Each structure stands twice: as C-alpha cells, then as structure tokens.
C-alpha cells in the first residue's frame, strides 16, 4: 500500500480520487445487492458467503499455474472452485446424511483455508497478497486507468460496472421467474420454469460478481453487500420491487458513507485513515441496525411502542 500517502494528503478535501472510489464501491455494492435480494428471499444468505470463500483456492491455483492475474484465468479458476464446492456440499449431505448447512460450512471453510495456504505459499514467489484478498485495494482504484472514448476511467469501475449491468439485465429479464421460484419452487417446476436452472442462474450471477469484485474491492464488500442491503430493505417494505430499489439505495449509501467514514472517523480517535472496504461493509451494518431499530413496521422501537400502547 505504498500509495496510502496520497490519500492522507487528500483526506480533508474531496478529489476526483474519492469520487472514483465511491463510484467503484457503489457499483460493486449494487452488483451484489441485486442478486443478493434473491439469495435472502431464498433463505440462502450463507451461499454468498460460501461461494466467495470457496473460489479462493481456485483463484490461487489459476494464479500459480498461469502466473498472471488475467481475468480469464482467474475466472476459470474461481468457477472451478465454485463447482467443486457445490458438488462436495451435495455429496457430503447426500451420502453422509449430514445437514446441508453443516456440509456447506465444512466445505467452504476447508476451501477457504486451502486457498489461504496456497496464497501464502505463492506469496513467497509471486505478487499475491492474502490481505488484498480480504479487503481488496479499492483505494488504488483511481490509479489504474483506461481510456475509453477520450475519457480516462479506472479499470475497476468498468469491470464492476459491466457486471452490475449484466446482473441488472438478467434480473429484469427473469424477474417473474426468479420471484416465482424463490417463493414456490415446486410450483415453478410444475409450470415449466425449472427451479434448478433458476438456482444456477442466480449462483452464476453471485460467482461472477464475486470474482469481478474480488480483486478490486475485496471479498468483505461482496459478502456484506450480497446480504446486508436486501436484509435492510426487507425490514422496511413488503413489496418486492421496493425491496430491490431500497436495497440498491442502501448499497450506494453504504459505499458513500463508508468512504467518507474511512477518511473521517479514524481521525476523531487520533488514527490515520482506515480500510475503505472495511468501512463500507461497516456502514452497511450501521444502516441495517438503523432499520432494525427504527423501521416503522418491524423496528424494535415501533414494536416496543406497539406493545405499550396495547396495555
């Protein structure tokens, strides 16, 4: 992180650097929150966690074999990690009579540990940093620019933006089917909309998003933004379209607040700036706790008042 000093200089006054960081963070958060809504509604919140951990050894192996961080090799490696995880989870629960959740927990922690070992091994020889894997390098986003149509745009923004658009298109196209299979999978099957296909469509979206966001912003944002914005939105509304819109709003808000927070909050306590990725995830958690406390329908305060009014 030799560029950290740039941020310190600019910390007090907002620059285009900060704008790009917020844009990258927001796009990534959006890309996660959209499929995340369906993960939460399918009661598969842990699946995002599992996939984002499980792709790690795949990434490490791809990196060790090719020696480069090109997206195609990384993507194939990550996809293989994802496939191995889902297959192993299936086998362990089916043939070993182990609860599915437990099987998933076993496979993804093992895969994650294996990935860490591989990366630490590789790190001796090559440039892959386990810290980078967790909280990414979003602060460095504005330094890697590509020129498109005369504009200089950070590569990360383009990659994450493309994934966000892709997710948006898939969800708009399959909205009715995703809704049906999340609500009532057997009915979906009997009507001819294969719930298995829709499941894998969602998993593919999650995996692609994870891999794309992984290098740029780190897995901690992915895990947080897949689940926290949708869970927050579900506390505030009971209409699916509003759930989607609100979780989009929460994800953008969390990314913005997160970056501002990373620049300001540590100073209150006499520290220097902190990890933006970590702060974005924390901001999401903060927004969730606001909704949890103050939601007009499901909030703690509203419930407490309701209980006392009844007396």
């Amino acid at each position: 992180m030799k560029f950290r000093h740039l941020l310190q200089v600019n910390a007090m006054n907002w620059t285009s650097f900060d704008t790009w960081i917020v844009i990258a963070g927001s796009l990534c958060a959006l890309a996660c929150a959209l499929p995340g809504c369906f993960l939460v509604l399918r009661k598969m919140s842990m699946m995002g966690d599992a996939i984002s951990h499980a792709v790690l050894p795949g990434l490490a192996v791809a990196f060790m074999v090719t020696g480069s961080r090109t997206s195609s090799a990384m993507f194939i490696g990550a996809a293989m990690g994802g496939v191995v995880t889902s297959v192993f989870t299936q086998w362990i629960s089916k043939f070993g009579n182990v609860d599915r959740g437990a099987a998933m927990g076993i496979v993804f922690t093992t895969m994650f540990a294996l990935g860490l070992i591989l990366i630490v091994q590789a790190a001796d020889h090559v440039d892959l940093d386990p810290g980078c894997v967790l909280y990414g390098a979003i602060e460095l986003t504005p330094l890697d620019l590509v020129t498109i149509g005369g504009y200089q745009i950070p590569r990360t923004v383009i990659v994450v933006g493309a994934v966000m658009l892709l997710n948006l298109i898939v969800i708009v196209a399959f909205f009715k089917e995703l809704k049906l299979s999340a609500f009532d999978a057997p009915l979906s099957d009997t009507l001819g909309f294969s719930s298995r296909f829709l499941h894998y469509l969602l998993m593919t979206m999650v995996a692609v998003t994870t891999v794309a966001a992984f290098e740029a912003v780190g897995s901690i944002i992915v895990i947080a933004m897949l689940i926290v914005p949708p869970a927050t939105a579900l506390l505030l509304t009971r209409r699916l379209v509003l759930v989607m819109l609100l979780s989009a709003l929460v994800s953008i808000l969390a990314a913005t607040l997160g970056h501002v927070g990373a620049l300001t909050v540590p100073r209150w306590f006499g520290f220097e700036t902190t990890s933006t990725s970590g702060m974005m995830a924390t901001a999401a958690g903060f927004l969730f706790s606001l909704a949890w406390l103050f939601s007009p329908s499901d909030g703690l305060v509203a419930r407490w008042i309701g209980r006392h009014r009844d007396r």
Partner: protein
Amino acid sequence: MAPSGDAAGEDLSYHSDTAPLAVHDLTVAYHRKPVLWDIDLDIPEGKLVGIVGPNGAGKSTLIKACLDLIPKTSGEVGIYGKPYRQQRHLVGYVPQRESVDWDFPVSALDVVAMGTYRQLGWFRRVGAKQKQAAMEALKQVGIEHLAQRQISQLSGGQQQRIFLARALVQNAQLYFMDEPFAAVDAATEQAIVKLLQSLNGEGKTCLVVHHDLATVTQYFDWVVLLNMRVVAAGPVAEVFTQENLHKTYGGQLGLLNDAAKALSYVTR
C-alpha cells in the same frame, strides 16, 4: 354430492390412455426406503377424489411423483395418456400451505397471478389481462377485497384460499390439492367445498389429499386409501368400508379412534 351410481364393473371401461390420471407400477423411494410401492391407479374423468391414509403413507409423495417433482424409482404416470411435461396446461397444483414462506414480499394478487405464468411463458410480464383473471379467481374464493394485502397479513384460511385461487387461474382440467383443508377455519372449509363442487360441475377432476376421515363421504365421490400401497380405490360407497380402513390404518393405534369415528359416519 352423493357418490355417483357407477357400478364397479364400469371401472373396466376406464381406458388408461384417456383417463385424467393413470399410474402404473409406480414405486418411489427416499434413501432406498420405499415410500410408495407398486401403485396402480386409474382416476376417471370428472370425479372428486379424496386421497386418504395415515401420516407417512405417501400421499404428498404420490402427488409430487405425478407432477415430476421427485424422481420415480420405477413406473410411469400418464396425464390424459401422456407424460406430465407434455400436459402441464391441463394440470393445476395446490401445494401444502406450509410449503412456502408467507413473509415473502408479495401481495395476494401477485401470488394468484403466478397461476398465469405458464401461459405467459418465459420473459413475458403479467399484464392487465392476467391481473383481471387473478381478480376473478380471488372473487371466486371470496377474498377479492384482500387483493393488495401483503400475504403475511392474511389468516391461514385466507392464505389457503389464495393458493386455491392461484390454481383456478391456471384453468386446468385436473387439479392436485395437497391438504387444502388442513388447519383452516369453518368458513374457508365451506368455501373450499363449494369451490370443489363448482369445479366438479364443470366436469373437472380433483385429487385432494385429505385428513379428516369424518368428512370423506360428504366431500368426495371417489376415494383412494393409501398406505405405501393402494389399499383400495373406487367410489366412496363401495371402497370406504370398515375393513379397508382397518387395512389402511391398521398398525397405527392412535389413528384407530379416528377411523372408528369415521366409520360411525359411514354406517349411519
């Protein structure tokens, strides 16, 4: 709704290639343990059929196997003479109410409109026509005033009616209903009975998994007694006998009382 006067001999005239539902040598096993064993069934057109049997008898499994929701170990199922996947448009399905999460962020109308999805196919959206059909169905089950309500705000009976309305929208010929009478209020029970009768009046066939032995003779004109195998199947008047009920519920002491109670209705 007295059992129709079909003679037993007429059973032979049901050609399985035209019957709404024809099941042959169906066996289903979970983890190598059979749940359904060698099921043979021919359900004639236009009947209200109760599927009755103790817990774990495989009633839901039978429906799910007919709808290709679970793999068959062996045997085959014909819907009007063809495999299910070619006949989706003829079949409506009402799953058990507890099979879904009623906190899901959709309105009653949204859920009923799901019944139109097969006709719409992939990608096409619910429009005014589908919404109108969904409203009609809600009217038929008597809760059109709850159309915009989020489904978690509805009572169990109202939720069950929504499921029925959703099946109605499918405008099918053959309906599979998994315990529609489970834990509903008396008003809903009456609404469901009325609905079954009107479907029956239109010549549609309904297979209904049912728990309350006391009402079998009242609600259905055909009955399938199931306990892993088909103990008996046919017109209620002929098949719903003390002997058959004992065969079906035999080993299950707790249920013998229910059976006895039911028999007092039969013999009355």
